[in-house]
């Protein structure tokens, strides 16, 4: 029994530090705050309405430059995502401005056709070179994995580090990518007076180097929500980041639901095995 005390103490300390230490992070880097995502943590799930609004923001704003090549239109219908009605997505695919290059046809020619449900959601550019030519040399990245391909770099003191890690592990928090993109979308401002901004670039407080080629994409009232959600940059950013998080991890809802069943099964089995082991060893001092 004596040996268990330090372990318990360690976990208690970890919990305390995990809660209090976020403010103790080193200055210098702009702090990227954690957002109250519905899908973060070990119980988090996507909010259907938010995913639908997020897709609307993507469609009306982001899709002007960015593709979602790992996502097919059919994914918008499937359970765990925005779950739009199939007919609506079929119509959407048909009217999607960025066509699929198919072929060759029986004349041996490639041709353009509107996407089907089984086709990827493409952006306006056929390739990176075309994108760079149109975007003044900048390449708008594909967004289907962006929420997992970014993270928030935290530089706590070495003695806080393990407690922060334990806190995140205990909470099941791995939404750094979402936090970063939210901070990026809301991080545009005028450059400080002493900052030299390259022509055609925009100041962003969280983007590495603070100069980004993307103009501020969101502005209040730019997307007309149908469900009465206030049309603010803050809401747009939250919604589109939630949508991109789903795009990067479409199995999140199922994953966590199955996860709980697995964890429950393992807890019960471990407990039963422990009782069985105690019984087997009952007559043997060890």
């Amino acid at each position, binding site marked *: 029994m004596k040996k268990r005390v330090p372990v318990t103490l360690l976990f208690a300390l970890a919990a305390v530090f995990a809660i209090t230490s976020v403010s103790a992070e080193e200055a210098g880097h702009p702090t990227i705050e954690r957002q109250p995502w519905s899908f973060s943590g*070990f119980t988090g799930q996507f909010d259907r309405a938010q995913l639908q609004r997020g897709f609307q923001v993507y469609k009306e704003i982001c899709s002007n430059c960015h593709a979602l090549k*790992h996502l097919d239109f059919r*994914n918008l219908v499937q359970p765990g995502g925005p779950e739009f009605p199939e007919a609506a997505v079929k119509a959407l695919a048909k009217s999607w401005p960025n066509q699929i290059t198919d072929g060759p046809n029986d004349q041996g020619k490639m041709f353009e056709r509107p996407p089907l449900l089984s086709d990827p959601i493409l952006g306006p550019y056929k390739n990176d070179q075309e994108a760079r030519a149109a975007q003044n040399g900048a390449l708008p990245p594909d967004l*289907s*994995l962006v929420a*997992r*391909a*970014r*993270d928030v770099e935290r530089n706590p003191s*070495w003695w806080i*580090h393990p407690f922060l890690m334990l806190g*995140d*592990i205990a909470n*099941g928090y*791995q939404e*750094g*990518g979402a936090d970063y993109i939210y901070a990026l979308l809301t991080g545009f401002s005028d450059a400080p007076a002493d900052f030299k901004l390259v022509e055609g670039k925009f100041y962003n407080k969280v983007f*590495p180097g603070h100069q980004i080629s993307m103009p501020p994409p969101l502005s209040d009232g730019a997307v007309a929500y149908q469900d009465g959600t206030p049309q603010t940059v803050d809401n747009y950013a939250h919604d589109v980041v939630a949508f991109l998080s789903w795009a*990067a991890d*479409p*199995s999140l809802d199922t*994953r*966590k639901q*199955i*996860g*709980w069943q*697995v*964890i429950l099964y*393992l*807890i019960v*089995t*471990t407990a039963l*095995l*422990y009782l*069985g*082991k105690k019984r*087997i*060893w009952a*007559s*043997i*001092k*060890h």
Partner: protein
Amino acid sequence: MGAHTSTYVPTTRWGKWFDERLPIARVVKNQFIDYPTPRNLNYLWTFGGILTLILVGQIVTGVILAMHYQPSATGAFDSIEKIRRDVNYGWMIRDFHSVGASMFFLAVYIHIFRGFYYGSYKAPREVLWILGVLIMLLMMATAFMGYTLPWGQMSFWGVTVITNLFSALDTIYNGLGTAIVEWLWGGYSVSGVTLNRFFSLHYLLPFVLTGVVGLHIWALHIAGQNNPTGLDLKEPSDCVPMHPYATSKDAVGIFAFLLLYAWFVFFLPDYLGHADNYIEANPLVTPPHIVPEWYFLPFYAMLRAFTSSFLGIPLGQYAKLCGVVAMFSAVIIIAFAPWLDTSRIRSSKYRPIFKWFFWFFVITCVSLGYLGSKPAEGIYVTAAQIFTVCYFLFFLVIMPIVGLIETPRAMPRSITEAVLGKGGAGLPTGATAAPEVR
């Protein structure tokens, strides 16, 4: 222990017929049911079973992944996304495999630290220990090549950095290092060719690993298990049959470990990885920080500790070579522990000085891991250099000297005495399953 008398008696004619031709049931009965295990094993001894299970799990999930994976520079990244999105439960199989690599190393490091604490490397277990080091080397090679396969940015640049290490041999013999590197790459840079050969080897090595694990278990069953007292098995009451005693305890350990494993698979599949690996490999863009997976960080820290000067000693053009030598030596030196440790006492329980140095070694390894994750600059480099010295000091100075100067604590005569106290030899009534049959 390997040669204890067999108690297997076939009960059917067919069983007798088969036993005379291939005594596989006899071996299982002798080695995995009746096999005498020390009665005082704690839960740290369940990690062997845990590791075996993870190895099997990695092979099963790996074989399924290979059915859907495309080992080519243009197809690899997309095929992993297809697995995650379109293969039935593909995300789960993929996450079990990628998190499994981390869990494998976590378990193996605990297993090795246990070996250090209880002196499991000492006679007569030297061969067992060396086979263990060989297993760790094979695991490292397999994990390194496996990490290449998603063909993300960190995969690509990790391979570039690590394979480039061999070019350090150019400082010994001009052109030798470059030749080796090009031979590894199958070209003049890391490319789809490299990916293909790494995939092939990543599929092959786990089976080699399984073979060495077989030898490791064989050697274990010849020497017998060590135990928290480090004493040899002397009397029948020192041990209990493997089944149901050790097996019931192993089962608890395995399921408790699976709990941690499942937590990461289902709630934190990305936590142990790196975000940059969700960006497809691009030879033209170098990520700002190239960091290996967490389980390589201590070795990575030692590699990078050798900058143009090491704690004031100028290294000049040999800096890289020294780093590479240090990194590989750090693994190889573990194999020499049986001869570097001069103490005849196995368990640190009875070694008042070595016990502290064991924790010194643990802190050294963890600190190196932390420093490996930090950029190689300023105070981090100096700290990494100091801890690199500490790491080798542990093996080359502390292990031999402490064994010579240390006065061990009074030790019980046997495991039974350690458990029951003096005069308490023999098993209490009711423990009929104990192997008096020996």
